[in-house]
């Protein structure tokens, strides 16, 4: 029978949906490019940039950003969002502090308790969203206020002390690589593997891609939404634990800046706002780019009052350049019939259905 040569309409390139795992496809290329350019610029500019210490502090910070973004991306991927990432992190920190400081528990008890809280709060979000069919925005907004109120009420703004046996994790390194960074990389790799290789991961993606179609195919979409939220809460609390460990104190204000960061890094890293698309590697790159820009502004002694303005311009520049690159790639591919026939397998990036 006659089947038209298949030309792909669009795709967001970061999708992990091509199951053989195009870890480095499309948009990810753009991210790697931006990252490399930034990295090289900084390395040339500053003699201290390539020092072990700089790498250490940067890697540690990247790890946090990536974890927080992952917590956000998990909700985005099923078509929702989580405004309460930061608040869950905050509340988790307070619980951790209560456990370690006030109740004098050992870290081996307090940390699981904290993570348990994260999972439970995610579960609560998920259940409200999926079972009561409420909007994820409203639910997580309410929860954000709830936890923010609780954490200040409980802690009174007081940071909790944590024992040295606990701070070890956040401050130690492993052949020069911060433990925290290793944790984040392992978590991201596992999540990437889950999204590529397991039924669970594919179900999450399908739920975000088209909930109705997924449900008709027997995907328990409600349960998937709950799971996504559970994981989101879990990673938010994990980030909180690691942060407290690095900080050497459980500060209730932890998480106050996470909301914007989590969205920004997730989106820069190529997670689709409308669901169904995620790239673990993209999250890492997104976090690195975001942080390199911030670090770079300090390195070049940009007028600190205007630093945010430069940050904004650079983010905009990054996406505009990326867009230009995409348009160019598309143009080239269209011109060259050979590359188009291959396009049946690969997907032209960023093509906007007219």
């Amino acid at each position, binding site marked *: 029978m006659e089947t038209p040569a298949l030309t792909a309409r669009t795709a967001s390139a970061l999708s992990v949906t091509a199951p053989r795992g195009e870890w480095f496809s499309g948009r990810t290329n753009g991210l790697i490019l931006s990252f490399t350019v930034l990295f090289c610029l900084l390395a040339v500019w500053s003699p201290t940039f390539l020092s072990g210490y700089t790498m250490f502090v940067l890697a540690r*910070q990247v790890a946090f950003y990536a974890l927080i973004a992952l917590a956000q991306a998990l909700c985005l991927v099923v078509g929702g969002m989580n405004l309460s990432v930061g608040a869950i992190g905050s509340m988790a920190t307070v619980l951790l502090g209560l456990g370690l400081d006030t109740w004098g528990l050992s870290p081996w008890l307090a940390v699981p308790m904290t993570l348990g809280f994260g999972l439970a709060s995610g579960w609560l979000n998920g259940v409200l969203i999926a079972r009561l069919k409420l909007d994820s925005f409203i639910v997580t907004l309410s929860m954000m206020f709830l936890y923010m109120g609780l954490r200040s009420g409980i802690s009174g703004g007081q940071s909790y002390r944590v024992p040295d046996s606990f701070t070890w994790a956040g401050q130690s390194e492993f052949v020069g690589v911060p433990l925290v960074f290793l944790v984040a990389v392992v978590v991201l790799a596992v999540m990437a593997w889950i999204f590529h290789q397991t039924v669970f991961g594919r179900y999450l993606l399908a739920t975000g891609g088209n909930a109705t179609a997924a449900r008709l195919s027997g995907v328990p979409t409600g349960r998937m939404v709950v799971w996504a939220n559970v994981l989101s809460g879990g990673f938010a609390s994990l980030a909180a634990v690691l942060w407290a460990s690095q*900080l*050497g104190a459980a500060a209730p*204000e932890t998480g106050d*800046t996470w909301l914007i960061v989590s969205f920004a890094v997730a989106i820069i890293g190529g997670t689709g706002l409308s669901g169904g698309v995620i790239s673990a590697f993209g999250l890492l790159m997104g976090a690195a780019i975001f942080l390199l820009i911030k670090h770079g502004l*300090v390195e070049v002694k940009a007028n600190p009052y205007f630093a945010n303005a430069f940050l904004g311009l650079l983010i905009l520049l990054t996406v505009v350049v990326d867009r230009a690159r995409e348009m160019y790639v598309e143009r080239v591919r269209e011109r060259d019939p050979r590359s188009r026939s291959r396009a049946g397998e690969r997907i032209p990036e960023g093509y906007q259905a007219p």
Partner: protein
Amino acid sequence: FRPSAEGARLVWYGNAAHPYITEVRAGVEAFARETGVAVHCTVGQEWTQDNQNVNVEALSTQGYRGFSLYPGDPAGANALFRLLRTRGQQVVAYGAEPALPTPASFTVATDIQAAARTATEALIGFMGGRGRILNVLEAVTDVNTRKRDEAIREVVARHPGVTIAQTIADMIQLGEATTKIQSALAARAAELDGIIATGFHPTVAAAAILTEWHKDPRRKRLRFVGIDTDATVLRAIREGAIDATVAQNPFGHGYVSSALLRMLDEGWTPRREYQFIDAGLVLVTRENLDTYAAEVRRVTTQLVADLPAKYLDPPR
């Protein structure tokens, strides 16, 4: 002006663009001007500890000798301080005291509880020793808020005719502060005699609200004492809309901490492992509105003069 100085060995870091930070910076710059010692001045984007960590860690990779820092989080800042100390960099905290024990060598700050006590005493004085107070607190994630609250309660407890009608809190932004204070006024202006605000945002918001409130002569006169010297507040004092405010000497925070860093860098050693230096405070009323700045400056000069004698040993 140039935001930073070439060849500087010292860093002053302000957490965010904020009137308080601007005044501290004025102190640092005055120090640099008067002594010729270069200080790299830089300001962050948010008050939070994690933003401070990102920025200061980036700075510390560049080989500065000493840091003058506001602890974004009293306990959390210590990890950052420790990191700097292990790299052989000196740390002086300003503005607020970090959780103890701390790796910082000094804190130059106003004793916040003393400031809150002074303000409360003044308010009670204006109220004629009796009446009901609205207690307006600022950030609920800041442990200092609770300390101020305690100080206020302690003073109120000493005056039998005075009670706290209501406490409101959690306003780290002018809009929030305005909404809440207005709500409180709307709900119980009739029972109130005075308002105390112990933070920048509540003070500024309350000054604006009371200016508007007192425009209507039929309304009840509400006494007010705040803690901050923003232009709006000073203007309200001059116009008589509010009674007084406490100046906390931010100029001194900047000046004295820089002076300390310089001495540490020159090899002076602290007498004790950690010392708190009270930067003093001045109650600003309509009477000393034009002279209080000079008063504050005098306090600072005196403090700097006392440093070698009271807090440090000369280099060997």
